[in-house]
């Protein structure tokens, strides 16, 4: 019984690995003469939770913006379900984005609308559904994130964690195929964090939504993610299950996963020699 389930899961995993939803091939991107990615390759398996991790400033958010077509790579391809995102026209890009949902760090709820209207927003924009149907969908989605009671509140009246849960309900309103979470755990207390972790897992398990989580919260992600990519120096530094990466030979991966204060990412910002500078100043 138990073995049957595990083989089932592993065969599903291999099938999913072969069939990836998002494929990033040899992507180069630089802004203002500074190179951010130089030959990035990774694939996001369908129906799984993938973690994108890395030290601050490695361009994790930039990678999300590339995947969603907000910016275009200088070289390379980004394939979403076989479609090259960077080659799309505006109209086609918008059609593609209806298949994606993105959760922003601070929720990004529209501040001039109530919680209810925020969740109803994508429905009103994209469909001509009658009001009673919209109401049902919105209440269902709010129920899923546990905030049906807060429907009439304004975003300013919500806590950070509630904000993100409403944003998740809003993102789910149009039933996307992939959910992208940009730093979903930052600045939350343990209770809210636990709620978000539960929701991410639930969305993935119950609805089979492909999930991409960008974070540097190693502890939470080691439980949550199926696959992890650690990005450093414009490339993928390590890939695989997070628990198995702990003893990785790469120094940067080691430093990152174990939270070491000094290593390839130096404690000291590059500077002239300390003693020399002190002596020079005293002269």
């Amino acid at each position, binding site marked *: 019984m138990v073995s049957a389930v595990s083989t089932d899961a592993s065969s599903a995993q291999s099938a999913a690995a072969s069939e990836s939803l998002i494929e990033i091939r040899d992507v180069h991107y630089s802004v203002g003469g500074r190179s951010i990615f130089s030959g990035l390759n990774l694939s996001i398996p369908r129906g799984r939770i993938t973690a994108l991790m890395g030290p601050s400033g490695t361009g994790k958010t930039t990678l999300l913006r590339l995947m*969603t077509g*907000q910016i275009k790579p200088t070289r390379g391809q980004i394939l979403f379900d076989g479609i090259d995102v960077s080659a799309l026209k505006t109209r086609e890009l*918008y*059609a593609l*984005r*209806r298949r*994606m*949902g*993105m959760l*922003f*760090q*601070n929720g*990004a*709820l*529209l*501040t001039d609308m109530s919680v209810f209207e925020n969740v109803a*927003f*994508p429905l009103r*924009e*994209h469909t001509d559904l009658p009001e009673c149907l919209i109401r049902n969908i919105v209440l269902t989605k709010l129920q899923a994130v546990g905030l049906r009671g807060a429907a009439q509140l304004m975003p300013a009246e919500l806590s950070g964690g509630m904000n993100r849960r409403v*944003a998740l309900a*809003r*993102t789910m309103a*149009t039933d996307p195929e992939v959910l992208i979470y940009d730093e979903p755990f930052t600045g939350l207390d343990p209770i809210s964090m636990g709620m978000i972790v539960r929701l991410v897992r639930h969305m993935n398990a119950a609805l089979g939504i492909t999930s991409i989580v960008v974070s540097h919260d190693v502890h939470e992600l080691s439980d949550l993610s199926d696959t992890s990519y650690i990005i450093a120096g414009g490339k993928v530094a390590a890939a695989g299950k997070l628990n198995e990466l702990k003893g990785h030979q790469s120094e940067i991966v080691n430093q990152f996963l174990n939270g070491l204060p000094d290593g390839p990412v130096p404690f000291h910002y590059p500077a002239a020699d300390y003693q020399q500078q002190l002596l020079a100043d005293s002269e």
Partner: protein
Amino acid sequence: MKIVRELADNAGDFAATVGGVTLFLGRLLRQIPAALLRPSLIVAQVHNTGALSLVIIMTCALFVGAVLGLLGYDTLLRFGSEDALGTVGALGLVKELGPVVTALLYAGRAGTALASELGLMRATDQLTAIEMMAVDPMRRVVAPRFVGGVIAMPLLTVVFIAIGIFGVQLVGVQNFGVDSASFWSQMRASVELNDIAEGVIKGCVFGFACNLIAVYEGYNAIPTAEGVGRATTRTVVISAVLTLMLDYMITAVML
């Protein structure tokens, strides 16, 4: 040498801003027909920019009119023709003070509100979130605000003029005892429909300019608290300068 380089930099910045605004206007104009199909959004913006600016516009109009009454009366008295106060007040308000002061007040009240609202939406990822929901923020957010503002401005201008004339009349007729009949009849004899058309045209042009600057600065604000503050300041400064420059040009053309 340093000054020359700074001047060149500034000229470059200026050209870049002009180009940026022009391209932005192109994108904006293309979205306006779609935005017009959602009148409820525009009504909400007419309310935000127009109805909410009404109190400040009316108060200022009353005082501008009253000052015009005081100064006009004092000056005209020297020529013994204080009956012409109606003419002076009405022409001054209709052709110049009404549209210009309304535009300056509008930039300060509604323009900054627009710029900071959009800037804040940019800073808190709301605009990106809308884009990620496959909705063009230009159509859904910017265009209704722009159209609402462009509708509100001429209306505010005519309200300003009417209240301003009431202010002139209050000081001239009620306070200084200028003959009411000659006040109105002299005004009627000298104000032409063309003059009113000039005032309304100015109101429309200034409304277009002030709202364009406000939404441009807000939409393109640097997504930080400081960036939003800068966008707000720039909105007021650029709107004021642009209003006065356009005012000169329109006056020269319509003279």
